[in-house]
């Protein structure tokens, strides 16, 4: 788990009644809402209908040693995936991701989502995404009601992505995962990344942030309402993690 993620979760838990609120939300349908949506509009993945995807998924789950969550494919040209649920977790992956990414890259995406499950992020994620979806549906009213909570959850969510990235990196290796991030940035099937593009951009990006206070404020405001950190930041963090002792240990375990 990334320390920033662990600290953000601790800070969230310190909000009085927060865990109670999330638990009640899950109990009263937060989880079943998304499961219903999956069953209604997405295609559940089995060995028979998506053999290649299922094989990659099975390998990922086995490597991580977790119970197999349900896997769905949904219709979306963008490369994306998400995971929700606490007692009955599921992963949904976009058709764009399945068609654009190679098996190794797909494994990286699935390992990232499994990382969220391993770190129990789904507990808070489900509430966050419900609030964001409500905000989209009712044109910002929930933002007015729950503004600070949404911002706090978004802040945590950005850090939770770093933990999930660490998990994915441990499964597929740093270079392979850097390529996934580059593909996510470009969205092109024909693009053959070398795995260093985003990392090099990250150094330039840091120059902007560290160059001036105004630059720092600008970039922080840009991500304040986003659930994911900037892709180059993620590439930078993956690179740092790949130099760690624990990364090497986890790679030895997986390989």
């Amino acid at each position, binding site marked *: 788990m*990334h*320390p920033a993620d*662990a600290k953000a979760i601790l800070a969230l838990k310190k909000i009085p009644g927060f865990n109670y609120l999330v638990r009640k939300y899950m109990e009263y349908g937060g989880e079943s809402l998304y499961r219903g949506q999956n069953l209604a509009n997405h295609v559940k993945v089995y060995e028979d209908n998506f053999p290649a995807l299922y094989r990659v998924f099975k390998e990922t789950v086995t490597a991580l040693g977790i119970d197999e969550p349900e896997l769905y494919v949904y219709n979306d040209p963008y490369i994306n995936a998400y995971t929700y649920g606490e007692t009955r977790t599921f992963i949904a992956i976009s058709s764009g991701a399945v068609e654009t990414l190679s098996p190794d890259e797909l494994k990286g995406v699935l390992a990232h989502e499994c990382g969220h499950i391993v770190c129990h992020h789904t507990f808070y994620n489900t509430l966050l995404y419900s609030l964001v979806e409500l905000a989209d549906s009712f044109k910002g009213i929930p933002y007015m009601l729950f503004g600070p909570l949404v911002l706090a959850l978004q802040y945590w969510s950005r850090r939770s992505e770093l933990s999930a990235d660490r998990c994915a990196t441990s499964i597929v290796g740093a270079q392979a995962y850097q390529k996934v991030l580059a593909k996510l940035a470009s969205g092109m099937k024909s693009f053959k990344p070398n795995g260093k593009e985003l990392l090099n951009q990250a150094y330039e990006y840091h120059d902007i942030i560290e160059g001036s206070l105004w630059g720092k404020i600008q970039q922080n405001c840009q991500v304040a309402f986003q659930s994911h950190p900037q892709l180059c930041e993620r590439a930078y963090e993956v690179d*740092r993690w790949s*130099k*760690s*002792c*624990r990364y090497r240990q986890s790679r030895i375990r997986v390989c």
Partner: protein
Amino acid sequence: MIVDSNLSFLQYCSNDELKTLCDTLTHDNKGEVRLSEQLTDNDVYLRCYPDNMKGMWQEIAAELQRFGGNTFANIFRGGVGASYESILRDVCKKMKVRIPSCSTVEEIEIALLTKYCEETIGSMDIDLLHELSVEIGIKPQSYNKQIVAAAILVALRRGGGKVLAPVIYYIGSNISRILIGRGVYLATAGVLGRAAAALAGPIGWALTAGWLAFDIASPAYRVTVPAVIQVACMRLKHNSHFLTAQCV
């Protein structure tokens, strides 16, 4: 980090000892990362933890200094904390350990460890006290807990570091081990920790009771008190090895 000769011996300590000290600084007794720690997201920490702790002894020392210093004072010092000696004196003041103002760091640490051992001995049962007294060369004539405990305490006060070292090594195979036990408990969230606690047995319980006397409310002291005790134990061990090597 402030160049601190009192912490430079850390570079000669073992990987396990440094890891214990590092865990004490970065995680609380529930295994959760401390909100105010600045070590776990450090590049050197990522490279060295947990197998090459000697490579990050300076970062560990700096983190201890930061925890020991007042937050605002640290800012004015340019992000560096207080000297180890001032942290140690502060801890002793909090623990009500009386020390003369001219004492050296080693002497202050001995006084602190003696107080710690006294707390622990007070909560040990008679069988353990008998074992401990034999270990440090006292032949107990009585089977009364108070008398045996008093005999050990007198030996401890008169013998200073000479008696303190075997007492510390004996009590739960030294304080580091109980701290590692806590560390194991943190890291594995339950099963191994319970096994470690069961292995530690009554000695472990006695040590924990002694420990609890030091486990005080203030957040900064929750870090500096165990960390300073750990550093004191490490120095005691390091110095005894150094002396043995010189004698040979």
